[in-house]
Structure formats: structure tokens, C-alpha cells
């Protein structure tokens, strides 16, 4: 170790790490973050490497400039529309209604009218086949700049699918795999027509819940028909007025909706930032409720396993340590991480080698890795029995359809190896390999990629609004379907393309995508990374770049 770092990394405390990180110039700060191998007193059994590299300043300036130009032209076009020089294609009120409260708020739709409409052909593309690793698209063109579309009748087939959450490749229509689903459809029909508490509690649901509980390693589980509703309807059943919810900045809308519906006080901590969370916990425990200073009835920390817009993985060991110290409860939403991370696909709990009994409420969805639909909540038996009686979904929502439940059963048995084959575990390993390969190649090429190095969600930063539309169109020309995300869903300067790596992608498919990305990266100038990594990792074990003394 040279003079740069006097002590070994393990001895640095959290605050010192933060101070060091802030005091370094941007380039070295990013290098430091990536090479930080400290284990925070043994909480992490492996190094936790994520990177959120910042782009050079001129990129942010140019992005704002681009938005400025589009805004100016937006005002200009609105002026033309308002004064009748141009036909207005939007919904408008009739003359007789103009005296009432406006139905269509003009300014809220400004962004939709003036930027989204211009590049709208990159979203909601109609697919006419199974959304597996490849799919077929219906070609559509627009004659009036995306206000209306018409289908030409041609089908673009064999488009590589980099947007579906098909992590383990269970979105398949091979009849040999789906025999049990077919049988359950014949036995039960496709509709249940009742809620869990009335007559919709079938034996297939009981079997599924036992299997989910065994899969996760907990006492009991309960399944629901819809993943979004699992969050939105069960958080109000668990917390209410007088409770405190500490929720991550970038939580999904379903969690935010559930938190707001519950009526508890909500405080937001910075994304994946344990110092911010600890500060909030200390304030909550010390000061109590806002005016009366009574202790909070419950403190619930709501986090997600993998955040789908950033690709970051939650710092679970630290959160569990904090939760035990301040006696709070933890609600972990594993929508994207169940089946996708961990050596046998059990999610972030297995990824960090923790005990599932430490987490109070384990929630997840079957939409992503299991190729089905619905959600589950798992945990202790008392919790799940309480939810069976008090959850809004159990009382009012139709239960899961039997073929859907059977698909989850067969895919979960496949992952666990209970069907007698090793297909499941092979797919989990294949996904991990594909993820590592894809991320490593993209980093070598010089793109800015966000997130943890083992998360299958890969956001590639595009930054400028003009490049967002150009990127999606050029990729489609090369027969690759990508999802690009822009302003309201992401911060204004950080538009991105989000790739979801799947176990069903073969290496030739990934190579085709990577070559297209390489070409487009040069053509559109997207390679903003200022520290391109070479394929010689032994050079990066140096913690300081000073000359040896």
C-alpha cells in the first residue's frame, strides 16, 4: 500500500468513507467507489460494487439546452393552435363548456403535447407473437408526425427483445412445458369469479402458497391476483395512523400508493443511503410523533430488492442491522429480484446470505421471473393469518386464476428442481452469466451504466432528449427492441435505455445487441464514460495510482 491510503480499507468508518469520497476529484471518486472493497465490519460477505458515474458537465448543459429549444417550440406551436393557424389534434371542450371548470388542464399536458407526441412511435409498439427472447412486431407508420398511426400490414419478425422482464425465460409457449397448465385449465376453467374469503379459495391456491413459503424459507405465504394491488392493498392493512413509514426515494408507485392510502406519516430517505435512513430512524425514535411526541406505534422501512430504473440492489445487511438496532419493521419488495439474483434464485436474501426470518414482510411478484401474474406476501404465520382476514384484496378482489397459478407452480418447481430436471438451476446460472458478460462488455465499450454489477437490469444513459428518440429508432432498424425512458419517469438530465437481460438470450443474440450498441455508440456519440475499463482486471486491484515509493 503506498502513501495515499495510510490505513487499510477495512478500518475506515462510514463517515470517513463519505468524506474521502467527497474530497476526491470526480474521476478519482468514481474510481474509488468502484474499487471499494470494504466490508463494513463483516456485514457483507462479498464486495458490493455499484457505480453511478456522473457525465461530464457539458452533457448536462446540452441536455438543458435541448429541453429549452423544445419548450420554446412548444410555446410557439401552442400559440399557433390557440390562435387557429393550426389544427388542434387534441381533445378540446366545446364552446358551451368553456364557462365551466376546464376538463383538460392545458399546462399539465404541455410536455405530452409538445415532446412526447413527437417521439411517441417508440412506445406502445404492437407485438404479434410471444414476448420471449425474440418477438414479431407489427409495422406502423405515421403520416402526421405521430398523431395517428396506420399499420402497413407488414410484420417485422425476429426482433431481439431487450425490454421484457423475462429474467428466467419462462415466457415460452412450448407445449411440452405447458401440459400441466393445460390440464388445470380443463379442470378448473379460467375464471374464479369470487374472492378468497367467499368461494374463490381453491386447493390450487393452498398448494401454491405452501410452495412459495418453502421456496422462500419462511413459515407461510399468501398470494394475490395482481402484483400492484398486493402492495397497494396490503400496506394499509399493516400500518395506519400513528405509524411511520420510511420509504426509499425511488420506490415504485404501488408502494407509494399503498403508503399514502394507509394514512401513516411518510418520510423519504435518499436512495440506498444508509446514513440518511439512520438519521431518520434516530429522529423518529428520539422525537416521536410530530406534535404530541408520543412514540410511534410502528416504524416500517419499505425498500425494494432491485430498483428497476437504476439497476441498484438494496443494501440489505445494513438495513437489517439498522432495523434491529432501532426496533423497526422491514417490508422488502422483491418484484424484480426474486428468481433473478442469488445462487439458486431465491432473491436478495440469498444474494447476501441472510436469514429470511430477519425480514418481517417479504413481498414479491410472479410477473417477472415466473412468467405469470400476481403477487405474494410471505413471513411469519401470524402475519399471514392476519392478512388473510384483514387484507382488502382478500375481501374484495378476485383470487388468482387457476391456469395462472399452475404456471407459477410449474415454474417454481422447475427452479427448485422438484420436477426432476436441472433446467431451473441452469437458467439461473445462465442469467448470472449473461448479466456479467453484458455488463462487462458495455463497460469496456465506454458507456455509462448504472447499478450493481450483478443486477440483470442494465440502464444505459443517453442524457439528451434528441438521442432518446434516435436511439430507439436506430435499434429497431437493426431489429432490436429496446425500452427508452425519459423525463417524468427519470430525472430530467438522465434519460436512459433500459435493458433487461434474460436467461433465454443466447450469446449470439447478446453479441448482436452489443455490436449494434458499439456501432450506435460511435454514430450517436453515447460513450461518455471517462474511465473505460480494459479487459485486464488485475490492473484495477491497485487502490492508489501514485508511484510506488
Amino acid at each position: 500500500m503506498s502513501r495515499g491510503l495510510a490505513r487499510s480499507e477495512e478500518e475506515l468508518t462510514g463517515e470517513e468513507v463519505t468524506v474521502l469520497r467527497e474530497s476526491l476529484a470526480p474521476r478519482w471518486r468514481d474510481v474509488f467507489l468502484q474499487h471499494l472493497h470494504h466490508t463494513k465490519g463483516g456485514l457483507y460477505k462479498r464486495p458490493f460494487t455499484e457505480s453511478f458515474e456522473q457525465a461530464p458537465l457539458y452533457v448536462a448543459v446540452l441536455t438543458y439546452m435541448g429541453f429549452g429549444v423544445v419548450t420554446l417550440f412548444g410555446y410557439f406551436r401552442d400559440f399557433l393552435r390557440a390562435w387557429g393557424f393550426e389544427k388542434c389534434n387534441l381533445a378540446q371542450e366545446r364552446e358551451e363548456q368553456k364557462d365551466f371548470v376546464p376538463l383538460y388542464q392545458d399546462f399539465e399536458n404541455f410536455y405530452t403535447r409538445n415532446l412526447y407526441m413527437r417521439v411517441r412511435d417508440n412506445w406502445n409498439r404492437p407485438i404479434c407473437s410471444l414476448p420471449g427472447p425474440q418477438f414479431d412486431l407489427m409495422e406502423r407508420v405515421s403520416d402526421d408526425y405521430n398523431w395517428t398511426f396506420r399499420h402497413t400490414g407488414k410484420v417485422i419478425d425476429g426482433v431481439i427483445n431487450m425490454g421484457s422482464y423475462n429474467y428466467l425465460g419462462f415466457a415460452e409457449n412450448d407445449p411440452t412445458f405447458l401440459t400441466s397448465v393445460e390440464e388445470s385449465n380443463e379442470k378448473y376453467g379460467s375464471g374464479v369469479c369470487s374472492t378468497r374469503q367467499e368461494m374463490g379459495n381453491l386447493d390450487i391456491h393452498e398448494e401454491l402458497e405452501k410452495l412459495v413459503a418453502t421456496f422462500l424459507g419462511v413459515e407461510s405465504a399468501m398470494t394475490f391476483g395482481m402484483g400492484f394491488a398486493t402492495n397497494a392493498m396490503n400496506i394499509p392493512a399493516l400500518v395506519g395512523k400513528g405509524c411511520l413509514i420510511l420509504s426509499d426515494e425511488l420506490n415504485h408507485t404501488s408502494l407509494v400508493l399503498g403508503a399514502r392510502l394507509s394514512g401513516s406519516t411518510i418520510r423519504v430517505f435518499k436512495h440506498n443511503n444508509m446514513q440518511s435512513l439512520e438519521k431518520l430512524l434516530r429522529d423518529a425514535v428520539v422525537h416521536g410523533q410530530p406534535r404530541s411526541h408520543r412514540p410511534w406505534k410502528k416504524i416500517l422501512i419499505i425498500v425494494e430488492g432491485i430498483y428497476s430504473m437504476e439497476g441498484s440492489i438494496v443494501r440489505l445487511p445494513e438495513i437489517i442491522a439498522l432495523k434491529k438496532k432501532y426496533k423497526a419493521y422491514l417490508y422488502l419488495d422483491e418484484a424484480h429480484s426474486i428468481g433473478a439474483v442469488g445462487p439458486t434464485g431465491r432473491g436478495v436474501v440469498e444474494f447476501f446470505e441472510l436469514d429470511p426470518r430477519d425480514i418481517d414482510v417479504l413481498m414479491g411478484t410472479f410477473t417477472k421471473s415466473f412468467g405469470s401474474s400476481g403477487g405474494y406476501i410471505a413471513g411469519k404465520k401470524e402475519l399471514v393469518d392476519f392478512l388473510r382476514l384483514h387484507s382488502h384484496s382478500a375481501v374484495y378482489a378476485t383470487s388468482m386464476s387457476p391456469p395462472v397459478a399452475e404456471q407459477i407452480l410449474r415454474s417454481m418447481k422447475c427452479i427448485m428442481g422438484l420436477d426432476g430436471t436441472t433446467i431451473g438451476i441452469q437458467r439461473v446460472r445462465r442469467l448470472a452469466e449473461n448479466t456479467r458478460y453484458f455488463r462487462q462488455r458495455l463497460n469496456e465499450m465506454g458507456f455509462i451504466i448504472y447499478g450493481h454489477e450483478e443486477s440483470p437490469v442494465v440502464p444505459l444513459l443517453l442524457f439528451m432528449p434528441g438521442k432518446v428518440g434516435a436511439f430507439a429508432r436506430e435499434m429497431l432498424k437493426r431489429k432490436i427492441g429496446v425500452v427508452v425512458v425519459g423525463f417524468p419517469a427519470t430525472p430530467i438530465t438522465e434519460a436512459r435505455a433500459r435493458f433487461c437481460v434474460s436467461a433465454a438470450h443466447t450469446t449470439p443474440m447478446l453479441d448482436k445487441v452489443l455490436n449494434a450498441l458499439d456501432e450506435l455508440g460511435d454514430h450517436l456519440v453515447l460513450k461518455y464514460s471517462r474511465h473505460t475499463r480494459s479487459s485486464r482486471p488485475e490492473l484495477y486491484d491497485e487502490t492508489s495510482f501514485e508511484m510506488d515509493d
Partner: protein
Amino acid sequence: MNTVRSLCLTPGSVMTSPLSVDMMDVKRFKEYISWLYYQYLLVTCSYVLEPWEQSIFNTVLLTVVAMVVYTAYVFIPIHIRLALEFFSSLCGGQHESTVAIIS
């Protein structure tokens, strides 16, 4: 939409007779210029605008740039000359006054 978008750079050129090598160079140069124009469209976000809006934007921008260039051409030499005179009078005047006091 703009046909420039479907541009792809042809990597490398085949060795041929001198006349066609010239044509290849001209072609490469023209491709490079249209790639630069494409970058300008992307960076200023004029890529998403309709063609007539792009023409308006280009006209306005060129007018502003022309005015800046003209102003620079007219005024910068005068400003530099005046600044040099100001600084030389300051330094030269100071030298003379200190010499006078000492002697």
C-alpha cells in the same frame, strides 16, 4: 423524416485507381459533414422537430451567429487597440514618474 438518420459510415475503402480514390475521399468528406449535421440536430434536439420548425430554428441560429461574427469583426480590433493603449500608458507613465522622483 430526415433521411440523414439512416446514414451509416462505411468502414474502410477499397484501393482503386487514383481518380476513384479522389471520389472516395470526397464522398467520405461529405458523409462526415452530414454526420456532423446529424450530431448538431441531436444535441440541440432539433431532431424531434418537424422540417419547417428545423428551418426556422436554423435560420434564427445562423442569424444570431452572423451578428456575433460581424460585431466581433467590427469591434474587436478597436477594443484591443484601445486596451493596449490604456495599459501601455499606465505602465509607461508609471516608469517616468518613479524615475523623476528618484532623480
